[in-house]
């Protein structure tokens, strides 16, 4: 049984896969990787099924040792990783020999970096997924973020240790966006024209108290037209809700499943991975698109993600 030793956990490192979809009736949100595009590519680079569990690091990465050796890759944002003393390239599979240490530092680009290992990280599944749900202490590694001294189990794998790399063109195509594309929300008409203009024409700053549950924004306040109160209803991933006070919150992967604030917009699926790379103090804007455009953008992204030509040896 091969293992990973956690020498330093980093700021907030959790085990994540693609989440557990389908348990909304119990109030359980899917959770899963904040930047699923990076996790899926990472898994393919090391020869895993794209939904295998990896480590999601946030803003500051950890230090890991591999006593049995491992085939690894880092995807997402650049955390200035080194293997012993040699710097490691993102989006490329590499081998850690027994005794080598992988060390990551503070981010040099976006919020999250993924470490994928051939065989995946093995944890006890909760509702069919390895994802950590922090708030409920569910899933993942003991339902929590990693700590110094944790020992993670690497799953069994077959196949040869072929080196793979993602083409520069694709990496570029997957660059996280700061202009988030949205479709109108279910309560779009609760907001007068002037408020909608404020929302679509202002730049918002990502607040410090942003996490996997929600991305809080600071900037121009969006006023509701009426004093009406919304009856609690289901809310979706990427919903942009506007609470009293008018500062939007984007519901994220570990979202509440229902809510009582009106939703002015919804971030499109093709831009979810961009949300996962937003850091506190980043500036974002919203651009309105229609459903058809949103669907086409998602299709393009899935085609890019599925292409076999992207991985070469």
């Amino acid at each position, binding site marked *: 049984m091969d293992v990973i030793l956690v020498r330093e956990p980093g700021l907030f490192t959790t085990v994540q896969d693609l989440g557990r*979809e*389908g*348990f*909304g*009736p*119990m*109030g*359980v949100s*899917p959770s899963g990787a904040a930047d699923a595009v990076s996790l899926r590519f990472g898994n393919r680079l090391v020869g895993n099924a794209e939904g295998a569990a990896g480590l999601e690091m946030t803003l500051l990465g950890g230090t890991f040792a591999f006593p049995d050796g491992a085939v690894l890759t880092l995807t997402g944002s650049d955390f200035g990783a080194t293997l012993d003393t040699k710097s490691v390239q993102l989006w490329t599979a590499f081998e850690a020999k027994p005794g080598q240490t992988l060390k990551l530092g503070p981010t040099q680009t976006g919020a999250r970096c993924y470490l994928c290992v051939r065989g995946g990280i093995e944890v006890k599944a*909760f*509702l069919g997924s390895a994802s950590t*749900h922090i*708030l*409920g*202490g*569910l*899933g993942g590694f003991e*339902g929590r973020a990693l700590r110094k001294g944790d020992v993670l189990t690497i799953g069994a794998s077959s196949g040869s240790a072929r080196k793979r790399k993602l083409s520069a063109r694709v990496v570029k195509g997957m660059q996280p966006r700061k202009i988030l594309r949205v479709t109108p929300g279910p309560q779009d008409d609760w907001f007068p024209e002037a408020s909608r203009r404020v929302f679509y024409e202002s730049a918002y700053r990502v607040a410090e108290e942003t996490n996997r549950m929600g991305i809080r924004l600071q900037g121009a306040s969006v006023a509701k037209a009426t004093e009406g109160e919304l*009856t*609690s*209803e*289901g*809310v*979706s991933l990427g919903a942009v809700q506007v609470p009293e006070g008018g500062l939007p919150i984007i519901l994220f992967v570990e979202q*509440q*499943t*229902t*809510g009582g604030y009106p939703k002015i917009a919804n971030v499109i*699926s093709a831009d979810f991975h961009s949300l996962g790379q937003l850091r506190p103090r980043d500036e974002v804007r919203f651009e309105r698109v229609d*459903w058809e455009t*949103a*669907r086409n953008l*998602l*299709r393009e992204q*899935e085609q890019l993600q599925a292409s076999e030509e992207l991985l070469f040896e």
Partner: protein
Amino acid sequence: MLQQEAVAGVRNLHPGYCSLLVKFDALRMRHEDVEAILRQYLERLEKIELPDARLVEIPVCYGGEFGPDFTEVAALRGMTAKQVIELHASVEYLVYFLGFVPGFAYLGELPEALVTPRLAAPRRRVPAGSVGIAGNQTGVYPFATPGGWRLLGRTPAKMFQADRDELSLLSIGDRVRFVPISAERFGALEKEWT
């Protein structure tokens, strides 16, 4: 019905009081396709047979450190402590839906005399097991989370547990009755259920 006869391409359901959010694979189906399928389900809505409602009793220790808003609610509603407890525990509540966080059941309706608005400023951390009221709803916080409901007491019952067959203590359609208990009983039950 959508859970028993799942629709291919539908990935998740988020029930609310008078709505259902249906999450679907946008590359497999269009909004119009989903709408047409849901309309067919709606036509059969009257004919489905629901399982018998279960009655679940939830022990609650009211007031004191467990119910930091208890005294204020009594004062706001012009009632004695005893009246608040009797009234809150007098009703059989219906689980309208589960939402917010895993295992959080929206229960109603609260007796008119107890209806009190949410706190103006939500607490950053409400302890797990806290029993609160908001408007004409009542509910139990399964986990320590932020929350704006007024807290009347706390239950030692585990509302959501990963290592239990029935993860969530409550399901949609269940009936719930709160049973007042003493602090000593709370301590004993907490020990027993941990």
